[in-house]
């Protein structure tokens, strides 16, 4: 399988990653180089093999459903590139 320019534009949009038009064709080449290389996985028979989703042989830990921290809005806002009071500010999304 390989990607074309339209596919690269589509996945860049899905990834919310602006891609200048002149970068689309080089990216097609780069991605196809990687995809051609991973193609070799097709030669392995994986019939009946369960996917490995975790290497940790333990059940997911459970904890009490209680508040363990909070009241630190100032600290959480300290790195916000646009912030007012305790709100994250973004460009207007509704008229």
């Amino acid at each position, binding site marked *: *399988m390989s*990607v074309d320019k339209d*596919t*690269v534009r589509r*996945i*860049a949009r*899905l*990834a*919310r*990653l*602006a*891609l200048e038009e002149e970068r689309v064709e080089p*990216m097609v080449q*780069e*991605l196809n*180089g*990687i*995809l051609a*290389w*991973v193609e*070799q*996985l*097709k030669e*392995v028979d*994986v019939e009946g*093999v*369960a*996917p*490995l*989703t*975790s*290497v*940790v*042989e*333990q059940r*997911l*830990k459970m*904890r009490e459903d209680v508040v363990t921290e909070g009241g*630190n809005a100032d*600290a*959480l806002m*300290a*790195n*916000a*590139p*646009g912030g007012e009071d305790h709100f*994250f500010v*973004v*460009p207007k*999304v509704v008229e």
Partner: protein
Amino acid sequence: MALPGAPTDFTLAEAREAVAAKKISSHELTEAFVKAVVAARPLNAFVTETPERALAMAAVSDARLAKGEAGPLEGLPLAIKDLFCTKSVRTTAGSNILSNFVPPYESTVTQNLWDAGAVMLGKTNMDEFAMGSSTETSWFGPTVSPWRAKNSDVKLVPGGSSGGSATAVSANLCLAATGTDTGGSIRQPAAVTGSVGLKPTYGRCSRWGIVAFASSLDQAGPMTRTVRDAAILLKAMASVDPKDSTSVEMPVPDYEAGLESGVKGLKIGIPKEYRVDGAPPEIDAIWNKGAEWLKAQGAEIVEVSLPHTKYALPTYYIVAPAEASSNLARYDGVRYGRRAKGVSELIDLYEKSRAEGFGAEVRRRILIGTYVLSAGYYDAYYARAQKLRTLIARDFTNAFRQCDVLLTPATPGPAFAFGANADDPVAMYLNDVFTVTVNLAGLPGLSVPAGLTAEGLPLGLQLIGKAFDEATVLRAGRAIETAANFTAKPQAWWRSA
């Protein structure tokens, strides 16, 4: 080169002893390293130096030592990879998008180190979001290896992604450092800089507060000058952490205890699939030598098979980008990190902030990851890769029925020059051919310096163990270290640079 007996030449174990015996204060030790860090700026090993904090921490340590309340790492200066969040100290992950990020919290691993009394010298350089094998993808410029080939002044890479930590350890800019390893990012830079690097079993060190790359593969570990130092630092880094649901509920053993027990009677597996076509003959030679060293000390050498080895790298380059594309979705220019300027639409804000904030390799991996997870391609790529991962992990389970530890080369060659793999991402990925299998299976892997190439560049050997059997891996590593007697150090050319 520093004078023999200079405090910066200490191993972590020697410094621990000297500080505990009050032969040197933490202040004196820390000051010596602070000076070494400044003198080594041409190497670009540190993204952020924290000398004031280091000296303040040393003062607290000296007070504790005076009161007889010393922790296991009391007063010992360390370098921290810039992937570990450190409270009120900028943490960048080597990326422009986090170039102004100051965490309001501390990672569990670094908190464990400070609780043990350690001193922080600064944050070390790395490939952006730990994606790379050379530290060339850092937004803050590449780190230069302290090592050079004989009669050459060509600058070499220190490996990656933990290249800043490897350089700091190798050039004696710290006693030891932390690294993280998703596909080889501790072991490969350790190997090419003549250092010891240990990737523990997945779940041994908490991932909480470490900037995430590929969550099912990421693991923190020590980078040190000796195997004993790796045992000491791992003990301090590891913990059972309620903040990381994959942190395994097992007590942390004393890894130093059995270090000198030797390898008599131990079965060492040699996986035949690790003999790759086109590998330099020096790699095979050092590997054979490693087996002979262990045999001479009473170990039994057995040939084993890991039949799916050749599929590990392509499997990794589906799984890791897929997880990265999901993990890096959080960088949107809204809550923290860099935000594009002059944007009037929300979607534009996301797209431009991310395009400006991420470098070429990170963008490439986000796109690959998005593609292999997208509708219509998920089964062909991601689901298949996860099944391959099962087969790769099963190979190890089968091999460990015949042996206790595996011995392999750590890297397919010594350090390379800048830009050597610039045009071909796949060529760069091949650096991790011997290390990446271990991450996919979640096992512990240790890289130990084993010798020099004819050009005088370090090569390492890797020991791979059963899950949570770091003790045996370290014991076998210590046997290699004893036999190899690797004492080479880089010439300190950077002091006059």
